[in-house]
Structures are given as structure tokens and as C-alpha cells.
């Protein structure tokens, strides 16, 4: 199946989970990354059980903050 991850279209295996995609994409510090699928925020803690579908558009959003 084909998905779009962080703006890049790619062929992936059926049944791919968000957790595995994070590993495959070598996402840094994944514990601080929010994932969206088709503009919907994926609840943290459900990455292992969230299975991607053909045509899904996935974004990885780093928490961004700081203080002076």
C-alpha cells in the first residue's frame, strides 16, 4: 500500500503500525513526537495498535517549546 509520511510518498507493507513507521522513519526522540493521520491527532499510547491504511497521510510533529 502507499502512504505519505512527512511529505514523502512511499510503499509500505500492509498492517504497518504507527509505532513501526516511527522506527522505519528513524524519528528522533519519538516520545516527544505527536503523530497525525489525515489531520487527526493520534492519541499517544496507541501507536502500537494504530494500523495505517492505504492512502494515509502521516505527519510527525515535535513538541516545540522553551523558555528564556
Amino acid at each position, binding site marked *: 500500500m502507499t502512504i505519505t509520511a512527512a511529505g514523502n510518498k512511499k510503499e509500505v507493507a500492509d498492517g504497518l503500525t504507527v509505532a513501526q513507521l516511527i522506527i522505519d522513519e528513524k524519528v528522533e526522540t519519538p516520545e516527544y513526537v505527536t503523530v497525525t493521520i489525515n*489531520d487527526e491527532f493520534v492519541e499517544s499510547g496507541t501507536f502500537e495498535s494504530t494500523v495505517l491504511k492505504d492512502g494515509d497521510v502521516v505527519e510527525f510533529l515535535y513538541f516545540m517549546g*522553551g523558555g528564556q
Partner: protein
Amino acid sequence: MIKLSKSDFEKILAHAESELPNEACGLIGGVIEDGVKIIKKVYLLTNIDHSNEHFSLDPKEQLAAVKDMRAQGISPLGNWHSHPESPSRPSEEDKRLAYDSKASYMILSLMNRDEPVLNSFKINGSDAEKEELVIE
């Protein structure tokens, strides 16, 4: 090296000044050519902390900005935020919350209102390295 247009610098500055006394923040999007980051668009986002000492980007606005970047064929390059009362360098909190070592972290100091200072940094753990910033 990272390049920012004068007009985008002015856009960041105007927004940061309008948000005083609070910190302002946003994203930068662009392209990388021969290792040089070229900022094509700056995004002005809401500091959901509404604080003069801390900032957090609004995740929904962050997603909207990233979608806009994808639509325009540009990529997320990092973020920017202001320091209303401290120098243009990453604080310990900035470093602690910098989770993307590939991103550029731009900091605009308004400590001296007559001479705002913008610098860009790469942050990896507790190490912050200043990038060459060209505003033209």
C-alpha cells in the same frame, strides 16, 4: 548557513513586538540547497503559554503550518521564538525542549528594543551551536 529574507525578518520582529510582554513563536519553512537552509516562509503561531518566560506552539496551528509547507513544496526547517528580556541564545529550558537535532532554532532577543538581535542555533542535547545567519 541559514538565509532569511529581510521582509520575513521584519515579519517576525513585528509579531514579536506585538506580543510583548509575552514570548512570541512560530515556524520556519523552506528548502535546503547545497547544505544551505533557505527560509521561504515564516509562520506566526500562538504561544499557548501566553507567558513572558515560556512558550509552546499550538499543535493544531503547527499541523496547519506543516500542511501549508507541504502544499507549497517546502519543508519544515525549525522554529523561532522571542526572548523579551534576555539575550539571543538558547536557555537551559530551550535546550531541554529541543528534540529535533536537525532543526534550526531561531531566537530573537528584544532585550534592547532599539537593537533586536536574531540568531539561529542547532541544538543537540545540551550542546547549542550557532549557525551562520544571513538576512538579506
